[in-house]
């Protein structure tokens, strides 16, 4: 019922408010006037967006919002995180409840074209996988015929799952839940043989099970899940800010600029570094920000590699390898257009 009310409220908001807002004022001006960035985040996914014991949000997605806040306000804490279930996330963005949605959201053509959204650069390349109990003695997803699978509603996961079993002519039974919490609880209680979501999510959710060691992640990756930030269609300046915040973090990693050495790097003579940190050129102005926007991001949040290792990599509980998320110079897919 809450979900229904939410949808109605959001629908009403779309009807009555959004048009007027999008007409004259840009998102950047609204954010500046408000003094905080409203960031749509996961309701709780370790490594991507989860409040810690002190209630401070942390994660790879969270860091992107903090970097934007640093670029705009020179302060990474001026972010209000709005936890959204996968069902509610797009309506919240469409209606203007959040300024940007950074919530491990898969970029697909239909979402990009028919929801009135723009998808930004991919901040995590993922793919869908399965988790099962070890005692079932299964080594491959192809052996899942007849299994029941728990998944979260309103996700690409739900569709990929159907595609996978259809393509391989396997039978299965799907049980869908509105939130990730309910889904993982039902799997833990034994309602399903398998649990499916993005591979990164599987490692993260496994930590929440009563006996994480009794479960294994199957090797198959059944889909492409490019996860990235989304903004409303039509505000190109705001979209540029989202894009270039991520690219600045990538460029910094590529150039070896870190949170620790950024002050020192301000004296660098390398033209690439100078343009990134704003000591040369007026790249900040072009997107409506001060010219030291790049410096602010690295100073407060760090580069992409630092964020990755801290949240999902070897410095975290998830211990995910960089894999396809390494820089292009190291055989990965993360590639930033040049700042010039």
């Amino acid at each position, binding site marked *: 019922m809450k979900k229904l009310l939410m949808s109605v409220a959001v*629908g009403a908001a*779309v009807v009555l408010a959004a048009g007027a807002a*999008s007409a004259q004022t840009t998102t950047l001006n609204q954010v500046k006037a408000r003094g905080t960035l409203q960031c749509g985040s996961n309701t709780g996914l370790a490594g991507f967006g989860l409040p810690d014991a002190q209630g401070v949000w942390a994660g790879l997605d969270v860091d992107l919002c903090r970097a934007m806040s640093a670029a705009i306000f020179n302060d990474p804490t001026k972010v209000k995180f709005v936890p959204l279930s996968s*069902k509610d996330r797009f309506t919240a963005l469409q209606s203007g409840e959040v300024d940007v949605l950074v919530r491990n959201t898969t970029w697909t053509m239909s979402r990009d074209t028919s929801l009135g959204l723009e998808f930004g650069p991919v901040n995590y390349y993922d793919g869908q996988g399965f988790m099962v109990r070890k005692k079932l003695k299964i080594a491959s997803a192809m052996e899942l015929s007849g299994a029941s699978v728990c998944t979260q509603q309103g996700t690409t996961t739900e569709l990929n799952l159907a595609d996978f079993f259809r393509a391989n002519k396997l039978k299965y039974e799907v049980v869908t839940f509105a939130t990730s919490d309910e889904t993982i609880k039902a799997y833990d209680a034994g309602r399903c043989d398998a649990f499916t979501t993005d591979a990164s999510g599987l490692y993260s959710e496994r930590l929440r099970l009563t006996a994480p060691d009794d479960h294994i992640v199957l090797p198959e990756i059944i889909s492409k899940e490019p996860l990235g930030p989304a903004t409303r269609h039509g505000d190109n300046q705001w979209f540029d800010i989202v894009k270039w915040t991520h690219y600045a973090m990538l460029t910094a990693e590529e150039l070896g600029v870190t949170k620790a050495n950024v002050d020192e790097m301000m004296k660098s003579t390398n033209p690439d570094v100078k343009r990134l940190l704003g000591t040369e050129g007026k790249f900040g102005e072009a997107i409506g920000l001060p010219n030291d926007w790049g410096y602010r991001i690295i100073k407060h949040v760090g580069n992409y590699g630092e964020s990755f290792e801290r949240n999902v990599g070897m410095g975290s509980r998830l211990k995910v390898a960089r894999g396809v998320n390494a820089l292009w110079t190291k055989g990965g897919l993360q590639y930033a257009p040049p700042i010039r």
Partner: protein
Amino acid sequence: MSSVDARTSGAQGVGVEKPRVAFWNDPEKRGYIFQAVLFAAVIYFFWAAFDNARDNLVKQKIASGFGFWNNTAGFDIGQRLIPYETTSTYGQAFWVGLTNTLLVAVVGIVLATFLGFIIGVARLSKNWLVQKLATIYVEAIRNTPLLLQLLFWYNAVLKALPEVKESVAIPGGSFLNTRGLFVPEPVFAANFSWVLYTLLAGLVGYVSYGRWARLKQEKTGEQSPVLKVGFGLVILFPLAVYFLAGQPLSFNYPDLGRFNIRGGVQVYPEFVALVVGLTIYTAAFIAEAVRAGIQAVSKGQTEAAYALGLRPGPTLDLVVIPQAMRVIIPPLTSNYLNLTKNSSLAVAIGYPDLVQVFTGTVLNQTGQAVEVVVITMAVYLTISLTTSMFMNWYNARKALIER
């Protein structure tokens, strides 16, 4: 008296000539004008809201319209009463959700009515223990949120059940495990239709015999053995035909497979949890309505019936309950409506009802919140209005006809 008053006042209205005034000072004409202005304002408000919504959706490049109805859904639904495939349309997904909602509503209403009447009568029992237990039940259930109760039932039901490999075999070929209850599926042979026909004929015979017996009793006071005749017509007669036709009914028994049980009919734990939760919750309210209805019949009615020589059974049957029903039916109707609407809480426990499937997955995959929510609200409105129409008709039939 009153008719005379009406005539004189009418005569005054016609006879006295109205003073000539400007039309905006004429209360009657002014009334019409205000009505027209209000009507126009209301129409304009809805038109403006609709137009504004359409405008904004176009401006924001959000798809609108009902074209999505025939698009391929691409997702699966666990429990379905009508055929549905991954390649079916969103429209078909809507019907699957709707039938699931109706199933829960109908089963829930029937069970809640039975349980509610039992508890309601138990509340008035002379047995101290029974009466206290019923009171505790009503107070405990009425005063806790339904959502929590549903989560409790779902988790209680799930946690208590064994895994598939350790399925509990129930005598008669059924299995019980975390996937739900698997019961044998009846397979009807061609001859079975004869049994159905005799059953139908038996029912018609039973109803007409009952009516004839009642008329006879009203005329002569003689009672007829309605129950015995009914038993013969509805049960013995079809049973005899069943054996004569060569027992045309077999069962497809569930069979323990690698992950799951093959064959048979599966009753999903989500369904069980939802029906149990809704039934127990709504029964508490129905019980109160029943208690109130019975207590509304004054004691003098019972005493009068006893004085006429009626025994306690017929007294309850013929005197108390018909009068209590008049009081019970209106609140009963709103409880039925509540149960139907509360079934949308299914979303919390993964039962694929209309809200879960349609305003959940379909809304999310298509992104057309306005259309999907409007359709869903229209459906609930239709179900509720149909239910209350039927109950109003029933209420009118049961209403006290004063002579």
